[in-house]
């Protein structure tokens, strides 16, 4: 459960007259569930990249519980993200050749020398929780809905303080999308994590606490 405070954030890309993102001030209470909406190109993905430290910030502050990502080196941002953020993306980014369990454990394995003793059982529990029965099934043989559920399990197994999802239901059919959306909300509630979901999906936005609407890099409402 982390709070986010953004201050005087401005992101510009070379060759573009207007900033891609311009947020003078924004505060997100710990544990709230936020919908990030807006037309394509409004800056949703940029906001998410900034929020989890995947992109450098040159001016302004992005503070999670007082830790300013803008002031961190790339390596420290990587470490912060590994420790605190769970990511779910539109096209899953699962690794073919690994099983569901292998995918869930991969970030944990890569970010520390040894897996904590209970991590494996936590991963199995989490897979069961998202409704994947066969933990040893290779991910490339799964349906898209199953893949996104594996991705959700991967995002949550490290008990992140913030869950960030970028269009998690956009590439799924209605039924699977509904299931994944429910899982995200329930799990965020259970773990008391702050949840930020970038989405066009009206059924999903309706179930979230607060809507942040982005337009041309500005936050409205």
């Amino acid at each position, binding site marked *: 459960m982390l709070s986010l405070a953004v201050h005087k954030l401005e992101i510009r890309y070379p060759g573009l007259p207007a900033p891609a993102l311009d947020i003078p001030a924004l505060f997100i209470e710990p544990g709230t569930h936020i919908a990030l909406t807006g037309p394509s190109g409004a800056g949703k993905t940029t906001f998410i990249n900034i929020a989890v430290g*995947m992109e450098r910030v040159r001016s302004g502050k992005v503070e999670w519980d007082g830790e300013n990502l803008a002031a961190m080196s790339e390596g420290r941002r990587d470490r912060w993200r590994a*420790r605190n953020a769970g990511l779910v993306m539109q096209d899953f980014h699962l690794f073919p050749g690994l099983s569901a369990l292998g995918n869930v454990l991969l970030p944990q394995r890569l970010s520390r020398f040894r897996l904590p003793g209970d991590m494996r059982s936590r991963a199995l529990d989490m897979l069961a929780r998202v409704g994947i029965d066969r933990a040893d099934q290779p991910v490339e043989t799964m349906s898209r809905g199953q893949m996104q559920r594996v991705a959700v399990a991967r995002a949550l197994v490290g008990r992140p303080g913030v869950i960030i999802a970028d269009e998690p239901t956009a590439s799924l059919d209605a039924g699977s999308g509904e299931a994944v959306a429910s899982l995200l909300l329930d799990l965020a509630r259970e773990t008391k994590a702050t949840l930020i979901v970038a989405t066009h999906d009206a059924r999903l936005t309706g179930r979230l606490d607060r809507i942040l609407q982005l337009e041309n890099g500005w936050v409205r409402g």
Partner: protein
Amino acid sequence: MFHFILADLVRNRIGVVVLIILVALATALGVTVTLQERALRLGSARAAAPFDLVIGAPGSETQLVLSSVFLQPAPLPLVSPEVLAGLRADPRVEAAVPVGFGDFVESNPIIGTTADAVAMFGGLTEGTAFDHLGDAVAGAEVKRAVGSTFRPFHGNAGDVGEVHAEVQYRIVGRLARTGTPWDRAILVPIQAVWDTHAAHHHDADEAAAHQHGHEDDFAAQPVDNAVLDGDANPGVPAIVIKPKSISDAYNLRQQYRGDTTLAVFPGEVLTRLYGTLGDARRVLSLVATGAQALVAAAILMVIATHVLQRRRQIGALRAFGAPRAVVLSIVWLETFALLAVGLLTGFAIGYGATHALSQRLGEASGVAMPVELNVSDAWMLTAFLIAAALVTFLPALIAYRQTPAQALRS
């Protein structure tokens, strides 16, 4: 991490196998050139080792060595009989062995010499040395049993020659292995060769008339070495000398280098030959290196393309919390492992190929070709591995330098 690398390699196994084969074959090419050249050099040097000093009639030094050590047939001029007689009596000489050639039986050259040659080449493993004109001693690789008989052909091995119908030899002993082309030779008394060739010049009708009687008493005649110590013989094309000491060797060479004789150290002549061979090897090495460079460039391209195609995947690894150093190690280890396996396989293939090649060359020439790895090969392998490690760092750096957001956008 190894989990992930393994999964990735298994997923791309066809490409991985093809790359490994390419690297292995390119490496094997270079290794074979190096090892084979060394085997040839060592093999011929060792073949020449039992021949300290060779004396012949004036002519080509190289031909004298090729004929006496490697038993390559050539019409050499003869040394007059006094030279052999003098050498046999010389106190500086431990053994002086005449070498007379010209006859064959199938692919085995028949060498006319004296029983001293048996001791000079390390003794017998079977039977006895020759006592009679019809006795013969087979080299270690001659495929004829002790006790069997044969008739010599006049002419080159493999050619249709003229059979010396009047002469029949019986194999009475077998030489120990020497690793020289003499392993394929059959040794007979030089007196028998002289006799055969003297008969050869008789009128054919006369020879035919005498044939039966000639055969009987010829084979049973005891070997009389007295004829070697006089001048009542036709002479020999070459004499192999075992001197008593190194200074004797130099003295003898000095003394017998003149208008009527030629004296050479086979080792020295071979060294000069290698000088010429060395250039050929350099050309071969250049060709091999060129091929390797091309393969290396192609492989680098493939790897770089592969890494660029995987930018999204690599970006995702970072996004999910893999530290940069880990991502760098993954890409580097994966590509390096591929090259290293290829290199090691290539060394093994090259070593095996050289073995097979040397085996066949050895069988064909009678020169045992030792395939040996030495310290320089270990250094070469190490240098290759280090080069591979450095080169595969480049694609890893591509992966290192991009932010995860950039990688995911691409």
